[in-house]
Structure formats: structure tokens, C-alpha cells
């Protein structure tokens, strides 16, 4: 059986807009990506902003050509056989407005269903059922230009689900959603997958917990390259020998950044709140034996420990271990 998605040395180079006097620059958004997603899998692509997630999704959903390499969906080449690929896919991109302001949710969904050759009867049945399941039934008659962000995104997701694609691409489906709607969304994704075991979803996210909670397998992408690919449990297990501590410190007075220089540990996350004079730091280290040295280092910076706890390894720790820096840092660098 063909893999649902397969890429081989997939590379995409964007030409940077020419600014005066400078030669035209190039930007490698995807760099030799090899990926294989099996039918029936809920596959997560995890990476910070700018990692290349959307670029990959656009290539796979026939909206963008790769610069080189191979990309297949259901064994079909996304460049040469795009017509056949389109019969089998759908894509939803989170956080993007779409639709026509004067139509209602139900009408809008019907319109988009007509792009996939559904009869009106089938389409309306599916739409009504999805609206019901996803808690949007009461808003079916609301016009698009009166929707809240959450409702708009729910509508957009239903647009993807209602055509029953073999492979569904979800680009940051929970972007900008509140905790409650995000949970509803994850539940809906799971139930849609459970309805038919041959369905495949490739979803991207930069929320670790979401990938850990939802996905059968996860690939970690960073700066256009796949850094690791396995089940969340395996990724974490491979990392289990590491020990993770979370400390709350006081008295660092602006020297919090120097924690990054402590020998023998990796700083996973560092939040300092100068107003309250507190710093929370998450550290991962090869074994407990390194702890006394770390505590000494903190004391040397003038820090007092308010709280110290030993924690479970999470996907975030794995990511930092692999990419060498945390999401927050990566995003800062982007800006």
C-alpha cells in the first residue's frame, strides 16, 4: 500500500525580494525533507514559527511547487498529478479569514462543498451533522461577517472535514483559539479520524502539548529540516535518561540571562518577571549528579531558591535537546 504522504529530499527555495543595491537573496524554507506518513495516521509536524511547516503543507496541497525533490500524496505526484491529488485532499489553514461576509455559515459551507461535486442533499446532511457535533448548530444561520474568531475557525475546519478527504492537511488548526475551543477541536479531529481508519491527517502546530496529546507520530522540523521523527512516547523515552528540574528563583536582579551560561545543563525555558523579582527556569541535565554544581552556580549569581521540583520529560524538553534552543528563542530570532 502506498504511504499517504511521502517526500524525498524535498527542498523549497524562496527568492527574497530584491532590495536596492543588493544581489537577489535566496531563502531555504525546506531543506531536503524526507517524510513518510502511513494511511490512518494522525501525524504531527512540530516546529516554531518560520520552520517551514506551512511551506510543506502548501506543496502537499498543490498550492506551491517544490524547488526540487519529490512529494507524493496517496502515491500521486503533487506536481505532475495534481488533478488526481486534489480529488483526495483538503486543507484548512488556521487563523486565516475566508468566506463571503454576507453568507451564513451553512450557506458558505454548502458553496464550498459544491467545489467537490457533492450533491446538495449529501452536502447539507454532512454539514448539519458536523455543525451539530462541533457545537456550531445554533449559529448555522449567522452571517460570516458576524462570526467570532473561534466560530470562523470552526467553520473553516468543517469545510475541510465535510468533503471526507483521504488526506487532510491542517495548518495550525488551533491557532488563536481559547483552551475550551482548542480542546473541542482536538476532540473533533480525533472523532473524525475514528470514523474511518483509512483517513490520514497531517497537522502542524507549535504547541508541544497538542502534538503530544493528539498525534500518533511527530516530526520535529526546524529551519527547514526534519530533526527527529517518531511517536511522542518514543521521542520522550529516548530522552528519558535526562532529568528535568523546574526552579523558581528570587534575587537574581537582572542577571537571569546568565543562567544560560551554567555548565552541564540545558535551559529549556526561562521566564523572568523582574517586577515580582522572580525567575522560573526549566533545566534539563544528563543526571542528578549535576544538580549540586547548578545550585552552587545559582547561589553565585545571588539567586535564592523558592521552589524546586523534579519533572516529567515532555516533548518540549526533547525539542530543545534536538534544536538546541527553545521555541521562545527561535521565535524571538524570527522577529
Amino acid at each position, binding site marked *: 500500500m502506498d504511504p499517504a504522504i511521502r517526500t524525498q529530499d524535498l527542498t523549497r527555495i524562496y527568492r527574497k525580494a530584491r532590495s536596492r543595491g543588493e544581489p537577489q537573496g535566496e531563502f531555504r524554507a525546506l531543506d531536503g525533507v524526507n517524510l513518510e506518513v502511513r494511511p490512518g495516521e494522525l501525524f504531527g509536524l512540530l516546529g516554531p514559527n518560520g520552520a517551514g511547516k506551512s511551506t510543506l503543507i502548501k506543496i502537499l496541497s498543490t498550492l506551491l*511547487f517544490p524547488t526540487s525533490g519529490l512529494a507524493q500524496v496517496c502515491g500521486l505526484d503533487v506536481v505532475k498529478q495534481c488533478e488526481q491529488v486534489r480529488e483526495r485532499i483538503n486543507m484548512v489553514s488556521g487563523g486565516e479569514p*475566508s468566506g463571503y461576509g454576507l453568507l451564513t455559515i451553512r450557506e458558505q459551507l454548502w458553496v464550498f462543498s459544491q467545489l467537490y461535486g457533492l450533491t446538495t442533499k449529501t452536502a447539507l446532511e454532512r454539514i448539519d451533522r458536523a455543525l451539530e457535533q462541533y457545537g456550531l448548530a445554533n449559529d448555522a444561520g449567522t452571517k460570516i461577517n458576524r462570526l467570532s474568531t473561534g466560530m470562523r475557525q470552526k467553520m473553516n475546519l468543517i469545510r475541510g472535514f465535510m468533503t471526507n478527504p483521504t488526506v487532510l492537511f491542517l495548518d495550525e488548526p488551533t491557532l488563536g483559539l481559547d483552551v475550551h475551543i482548542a480542546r473541542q477541536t482536538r476532540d473533533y479531529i480525533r472523532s473524525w479520524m475514528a470514523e474511518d481508519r483509512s483517513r490520514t491527517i497531517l497537522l502542524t502546530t507549535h504547541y508541544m502539548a497538542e502534538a503530544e496529546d493528539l498525534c500518533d507520530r511527530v516530526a520535529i522540523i526546524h529551519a527547514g529540516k526534519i530533526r527527529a521523527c517518531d511517536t511522542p512516547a518514543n521521542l520522550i523515552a529516548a530522552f528519558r535518561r535526562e532529568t528535568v528540574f523546574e526552579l523558581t528563583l528570587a534575587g537574581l536582579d537582572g542577571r537571569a540571562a546568565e543562567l544560560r551560561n551554567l555548565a552541564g545543563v540545558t535551559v529549556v525555558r526561562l521566564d523572568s518577571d523582574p517586577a515580582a523579582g522572580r525567575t522560573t527556569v526549566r533545566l534539563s541535565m544528563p543526571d542528578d549528579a549535576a544538580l549540586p554544581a547548578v545550585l552552587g552556580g545559582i547561589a553565585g549569581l545571588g539567586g535564592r531558591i523558592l521552589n524546586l521540583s523534579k519533572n516529567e520529560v515532555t516533548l518540549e524538553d526533547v525539542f530543545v535537546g534536538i534544536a538546541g534552543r527553545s521555541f521562545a528563542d527561535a521565535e524571538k530570532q524570527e522577529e
Partner: protein
Amino acid sequence: MSSLRNNLRAAGARAWIRVVAANRELSWVWFETFLPALTTACYVFIYRAMGAAPEFESYVILGGIMIGFWLNVLWGMAAQFFWEKDMGNLDIYMMAPISRMAILLGMALGGMTGTAMRSVVILLLGIFAFRVRFEVAGLATAFGIFLLTMASLYGLGMMLSSLFLLFGRGAQRWAEAAQEPIYLLAGFYFPVRNLGFGVAAAASLFPLALGIDAMRQTALGSRAGFLPVGVEAAALAALTVLFGLLARTMLRTMENRAKTEGKLTLKWQ
């Protein structure tokens, strides 16, 4: 065959959006029917001020009616395709398993409600307020010419939509700037042969120039035609085929280029 059905379904749905939305927001009736009728009347008065023969009034009315169809193809279809990108809908159309032409057709058909209204208002104005006289015998031929003109105009519109897709805002600027030049070259307000043979022949690449001229000859009995009606009809048919083929290739080429350059989903360029 199922693919034809699916494409028609998609076109129907896209047209339906227009019709429904137009019914929900009726301010367009004012802007798209009443005011254009006034503009048309203006050109009638210009001829009156010049003391021109009454048939010029019929010429203006016919031209005024046809302008609506041109505007629908240009702004309601070709440019709309590009606006969909800013609205976040173009991706959805582009990755659906249907032809882009179906979507374009839907846009044009959906806009026809408004255009038809506009035409009727101008026609009534011409008949009741001005001195428009039809040659009843020529009306059937004129209708055939009208359909042919629409077909080639639609082909031209699809070509333009691919240019809009690629050049975005720049193309829109050009389309805006070309408005009066098109009004001039198409002979909306005077028989096109007044441009001189060379210019009129060049202007005939724009299907409305030939279409309006042929309709004036058949429906209004104009003797100021540019070429014989038969020749004009044949040329229109040739243009329809040519534009249709070109539109297909151009749409595909432009889409591929946009996909290569990563511009297909790039907003606000």
C-alpha cells in the same frame, strides 16, 4: 462526464453567492442601474447639444447597455479572481478538484443579475425618454451576435484574470486606467468606423467593438457600420475560439508561475 457535472455544480454555487448576497444588500440597485442610466443619458444630451441626427441617440443607448457587460466581465470576474486572494478564498478554489474556468464562469453568471437589470433600465430609458427605434426584422440576428460577443468577451475576461493573478495590484491599475481608452476604442458612444479604418481594425481585437457595431447594424438598421455584419460575425467567432484557447493556456501558465514563485497565496502584493 462526472467532471463536467462537478464543474457546472461549482460554477452554479459561485454564481449563487452573487445572487444571494445581492439580494441581502440592495444598495447595488442604485449604483448599478440608476446611476449608469444617467451617465448614458449624458451622452445622448451631448449629441443633442451638437444637433446630431436622432440615430446617434440609439447608438448611445446600445453602447450604454453593453458597457454593463464589459464591466461585469472585467470587475465582476477577472479582477474578482484576484480579490479572492486577499479575501483568503483563492487557496480554497485552487486546491479543489475543479477547473478555474468553472469558478470564473460562476462569477460572471452571478454578476449577470445586476447587469441584466442595468440593461433593462437603460433600454427603457432609451425607448421612453429618447428616440430609440429598433429594426424588428434584425432583432433575432442581433441576439445571435450578442451571444457570440458574450462568448468572446468571456474568453477575454479569463485571459485578463490570469494577468490579474500574476500582476496583482499593477494589473488592477492598468485595468482602471484602460477604462476610458476602452470606451473610446470600443465605440460605445459612436460608430467605430469614425476612428478611421486602421484604428477601428485594431480596436476590433476587443470583441465589443465588433459586437456593438454588428448589433447597431442589425437591431438599429445603422448604415454607418464598419464591416459587413457577416464578416463581423465570423471575426467574432474566430475571436471566441482564439481567446478561449489562449485563456486556457494562460491560466495554466500563470498558475504554474505563481506556484513557482510562491505568489499564489501571497496576500496584498
